């Protein structure tokens, strides 16, 4: 019985036809243009963290087509960019993660000559410790972490201390705190009178014991939706970003926000340009665009966080500039600290503590 052996033995004609088809197919592959940058821009940002019309306005003003991808938190941004820039031209980074990324050589220095609107920035933000001389970033928004609460459900209609969420069972089962190690441990450290960026193991142990004991009163660790839980009535007190609470305060007049008397951290979000982005020129044009006074004020109106853009702030209404949720009073600001990137070993230690708290 003979077994059929299929053979690959083309004639010369079939070989030529095949090669021709292959070459024709290859020419359809995308070509790398070395010439002028195409009119496209890829952004990477939080959700609802830009003005409602900003991207459309940018497209109208410059003709550059913008696409914005979203991430949920800084860790997602960092782990995605760590593996290599997948094609983003500009991204929103918080101050401590910017420090981390600068150290890991993941961002490129800015060309200030392409960003003349930097003169609009409030001088207090022009030389921060985490980015001297604004070499790698422009400031976008700044804010605080504090307590959002429902005035009708809270005794006296006002709160004033971190004790409510970290050390008391008054509102047991109706409390939510943030979901990441840095912010919860940091604010608890502030409550106990220590520094937000403490690396002392003894102090961190006290915080761990405090939080393990308080866990039975906490309903949920809500990384970014504390304000939704507050608005829907699941919790009456939550530890949240000030802008998130300000956004729901606009819809629900019963809600309020304060910065506790022990102090909290001041965070700053910035725009930076990652290495290996395909359109760095367009990215600079975009950064210049959002530093413009008019565009900056539109962003601040939607996002309801504090803007470091002095020119934009002048255009904002008094409900915004006078709101204690957005601009805390000066005596409280003196007790607040910036978040600092503490190095990988400390991160590891803090993460272990966080896992212990979660597992308890």
């Amino acid at each position, binding site marked *: 019985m003979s077994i059929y052996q299929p053979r690959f033995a083309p004639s010369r004609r079939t070989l030529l036809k095949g090669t021709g088809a292959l070459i024709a197919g290859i020419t359809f592959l995308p070509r790398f243009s070395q010439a002028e940058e195409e009119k496209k821009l890829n952004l990477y940002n939080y959700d609802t963290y830009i003005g409602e019309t900003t991207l459309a306005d940018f497209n109208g003003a410059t003709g550059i087509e913008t696409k914005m991808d979203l991430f949920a938190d800084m860790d997602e941004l960092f782990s995605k960019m760590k593996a290599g820039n997948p094609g983003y031209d500009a991204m929103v980074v918080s101050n401590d993660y910017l420090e981390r990324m600068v150290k890991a050589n993941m961002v490129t220095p800015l060309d200030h000559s392409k960003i003349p609107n930097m003169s609009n920035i409030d001088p207090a933000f022009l030389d921060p410790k985490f980015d001297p001389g604004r070499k790698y970033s422009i400031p976008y928004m700044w804010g605080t972490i504090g307590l959002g609460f429902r005035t009708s459900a809270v005794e006296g209609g006002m709160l004033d201390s971190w004790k409510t969420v970290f050390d008391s069972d008054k509102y047991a089962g109706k409390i939510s705190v943030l979901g990441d190690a840095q912010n919860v441990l940091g604010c608890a450290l502030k409550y106990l009178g220590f520094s937000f960026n403490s690396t002392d193991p003894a102090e961190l142990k006290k915080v761990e014991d405090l939080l393990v004991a308080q866990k039975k009163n*906490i*309903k949920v660790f809500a990384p970014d939706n504390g304000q939704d839980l507050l608005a829907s009535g699941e919790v009456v007190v939550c530890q949240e970003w000030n802008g998130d609470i300000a956004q729901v305060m606009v819809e629900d007049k019963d809600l309020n926000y304060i910065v506790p008397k022990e102090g909290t951290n001041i965070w700053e979000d910035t725009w930076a340009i990652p290495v290996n982005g395909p359109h760095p020129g367009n990215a600079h044009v975009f950064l210049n665009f959002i530093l413009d006074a008019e565009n900056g004020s539109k962003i601040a109106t939607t996002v309801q966080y504090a803007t470091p853009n002095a020119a934009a702030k002048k255009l904002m209404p008094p409900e915004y500039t006078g709101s204690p949720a957005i601009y805390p009073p000066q005596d409280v600001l003196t007790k607040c600290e910036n978040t600092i990137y503490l190095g990988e070993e400390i991160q590891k230690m803090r*993460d272990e503590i966080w896992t212990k708290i979660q597992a308890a």
Partner: protein
Amino acid sequence: MDNWKDNKNVFWTLAGPGTFWLVMFFVVPLAFLFIMSFGGKAIINGEMSITEYDYFTGFGNYLRSLDPLYLGIMWKTIWVSAIATVLCLVTAYPIAFGICFAPERWKPILLMLVVLPFWINLLIRTYALIAVFRTQGYVNLALGTVGLGPYEMLYNNFAVIFGLVYVYMPFMVLPLYATIERLDKSFLEASLDLGASQYTTFLKVTVPLTMPGIVTGVILVFIPCLGSFLTPDLLGGANAVMIGNVIERQFKAANDWPFGAAISFMLMFATFAALMLRAFIASRSRGVDV
């Protein structure tokens, strides 16, 4: 049957793409993670690097994952997954049984109803459960109309287990349906004729004969439950951390990929141990095996 060596060209043309996919996108990444689990973060200039890794620094990560903290979480995960699997089995068996004994023209429709949730993304289904169970959710609103107070059904272990059972139910129903469908109904008739009660028939005839389906369903539900992190993250309260959440955090917030890889492999070894246990039990039993 032909020996594949006789027709190597044909064999590799057919098996090539599948093997390539398996090696390229499964074996190679897994091997990479395995190598990474024996490494650690590089120490450059006296401080830990953010992105660089040292490879082959030893078993440090595995020893760290045997710490009581992580073993405790692993044990809780196994426990929660086991409860979810048992509940899934107990609710899926009557459903599969019912579909098998339904009239012929109803069977495809009923099967489609079981499979329909798959058409919707897992994340959206979990969010839907939040809308159903929260304090102002649908269940509490419905109970409120008859005067029963709002119950805490979300952000606790009940919600996590319910979420897991809800999500993995089709995985249990389908293998059970496949096995029960193949069951020769005359066995059940014979058993009843010989004097056994319905209950005894079920225990001594139906269950052993459908054991392959039960085992397949249990494996298909238990193993993904072990690794789930989305359900405890969204539905769980302060106490709901499972090993999947810890692994996720190592790869994101903690930026410690070698340790995350080590815990992942510990989880895989635990899964292998469970599979070996079930193979051991199956070989010792006198019943029908897969």
